[in-house]
């Protein structure tokens, strides 16, 4: 009996330890102390890796740093909005005397104090993908201009939309910086404002396929005449398409999205998505590492504020006056698994 109790306790402890260890390295995977003179260690703090975008960004940053001969400490949020894990990770990185931190903030304000602490110790902090509020909280930001991305698909939708548009907005929590930027950018590109009568309805998704599908189904139930669908990202667009297809409306509605993942570009090629705005996560990571390298070499700080890593409109139905690339080009330049 005693033996089984001990075995059970050991098993439980094992499961619990592996459970707490997964998802976040909290600096545990540090490949070196970084305090030796001459050694450069940088910290990379990402969002939840369940999203391949953040995984691509993390890998790009890491490989650019490794190419410079630097060591890296990595950590990532466990779920969207998990700034607490990021704060702990940055504290550990400060203690480990990293030279710079590349941060993808889970929250625009929650990380301000710990980032200030890092910068006060002379650590260069660069945010990627998202920004702090105020943006000057970090030394520089390399990110997609999400408002510009939203504007591109808004303009495209306007130019290719039917005469009587009925718009569905499939959003993600609008307190999230990129989500709010895309939403506002789309409306601006379309030339309307929140509450415009051409907006049939809006619904909150969790940025996943099945939540996109349910949200679209609910909106279609109330407004079967929806013919323009804005989606926060490509998984939501995929779900919206399933909902439209089930109702036999897939041909009557135009879906637009943002991301440029390979699976999303394939959906553009297959006609599921009309147009998507491609982001370049690898470029963000590369630009951040280049900026750190320059700072370490001669103390030149990168340009403060938002440095746009670029957005490209991907569509196989180009419209006049709006620069775009085909899905074939997109498949050459997309991120994530093909």
């Amino acid at each position, binding site marked *: 009996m005693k033996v089984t109790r001990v075995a059970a306790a050991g098993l*439980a402890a094992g*499961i619990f330890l592996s459970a707490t260890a997964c998802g976040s390295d909290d600096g545990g995977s540090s490949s070196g102390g970084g305090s030796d003179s001459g050694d450069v260690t940088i910290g990379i703090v990402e969002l939840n*890796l*369940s999203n391949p975008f953040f995984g691509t960004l993390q890998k790009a940053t890491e490989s650019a740093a490794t190419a410079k001969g630097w060591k890296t400490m990595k950590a990532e949020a466990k779920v969207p909005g998990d700034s607490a894990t990021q704060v702990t990770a940055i504290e550990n990185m400060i203690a480990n005397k990293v030279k710079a931190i590349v941060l993808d903030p889970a929250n625009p304000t929650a990380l301000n104090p710990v980032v200030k602490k890092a910068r006060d110790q002379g650590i260069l902090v660069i945010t990627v993908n998202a920004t702090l509020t105020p943006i000057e909280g970090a030394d520089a930001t390399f990110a997609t201009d999400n408002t510009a991305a939203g504007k591109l698909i808004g303009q495209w939708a306007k130019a290719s939309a039917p005469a009587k548009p009925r718009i569905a907005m499939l959003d993600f929590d609008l307190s999230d910086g990129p989500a709010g930027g895309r939403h506002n950018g789309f409306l601006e590109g379309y030339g309307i404002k929140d509450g415009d009568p051409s907006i049939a309805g809006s619904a909150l998704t969790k940025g996943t396929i099945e939540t996109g599908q349910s949200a679209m189904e*609910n909106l279609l139930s109330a407004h079967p005449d929806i013919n323009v669908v804005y989606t926060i990202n490509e*998984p939501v667009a995929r779900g919206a398409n399933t909902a439209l297809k089930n109702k036999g409306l897939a041909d009557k509605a135009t879906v637009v999205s943002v991301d440029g993942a390979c699976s999303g570009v394939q959906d553009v090629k297959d006609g599921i998505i009309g147009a998507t705005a491609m982001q370049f996560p690898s470029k963000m990571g590369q630009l951040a590492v280049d900026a750190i390298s320059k700072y370490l070499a001669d103390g030149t700080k990168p340009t403060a504020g938002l440095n746009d890593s670029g957005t490209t409109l991907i569509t196989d139905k180009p419209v006049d006056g709006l620069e775009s690339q085909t899905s074939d080009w997109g498949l050459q330049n997309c991120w994530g*698994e093909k």
Partner: protein
Amino acid sequence: MTQLDDAVLLEKEDRAGPLRAALSSQTAGPLAALVLAVVIFSATTDSFLNAGNLSLIAQQSVVVGTLALGQTLVILTAGIDLSNGAIMVLASVVIGNLATDGNVFGALLAGLAVCLVLGLLNGVLVAQFSLPPFIVTLGVLSVLTAAARLYTDSQSYPIDSAFLTALNGGPTVGGVTITYGVLLWIGLTAILGYALTQTAWGVRVYAVGDNPRAAALTGIKVKRVLLSVYLTAAVVYAFAAWQALGRTPTADPSGYSTANLDSITAVVIGGTSLFGGRGGVVGTLIGALIVTVLANGLTQAGIDSLYQQVATGILVVIAVAVDHFVRTRQTR
């Protein structure tokens, strides 16, 4: 002994007829809440009350609703299963991956095997080693969430097999599709409801949930009953995985991340006591429908979807308060 007498009494009461069992006081409350929600949304929106939308609500409920059936069994034994959504997601990505070879039937069986192995793991840790179900399934949840992402490299598998997505099809009656998935959900509810109320196994499940020591004293093999509950729940989760592939033809390791809590919500709103020994699967079916009706109706009414969470949360607190009230009155 009074606890067991209660169980025997409950059994006698339920033998009076399935209809009476379904309409017993435990499902009356949830049913009233469901009817109230339907009436309110029918009155306030033009689009809520039509056969197409009601069919849609049933379809939107099946995945979490099926998971919640398994959850009900576990909660009836005073346990909780935080890992059920993760078990389902892992099974669905295993099915999605293996199905790319074309052997869809084998893939589905592999998904069932995944569920059974994990149900066995939970069951052995809870029954044989007497570990708290909350901690066991929390640990398993974390491991499986990571396992599904490692297994798939965080990518999703599109499902194009007609067999694997068959549950999304079904007969059309008067322009409204009644999917096989919905029929399966109702069928599973009926089977489990029968097993819980009309068989000796069901009596034992309630007895173990009510008071495991008293149950053991009457000769019930508590560990064996617990293990059977976790294994039965695992089979139900495998059905949920098939339901999920039918509803959204993609095996997505990032999907259904809150399905475990959603299933507990459905169970609690459905009137099953978190303290074990009281409740049933019919209430859970109604509970799952209530949650979907709120999301569907509030979206159609153009109300911010955050209020869906507020409304659901309030219902959970009311359900637990009612349960507490009933329980204290009984023991007095």
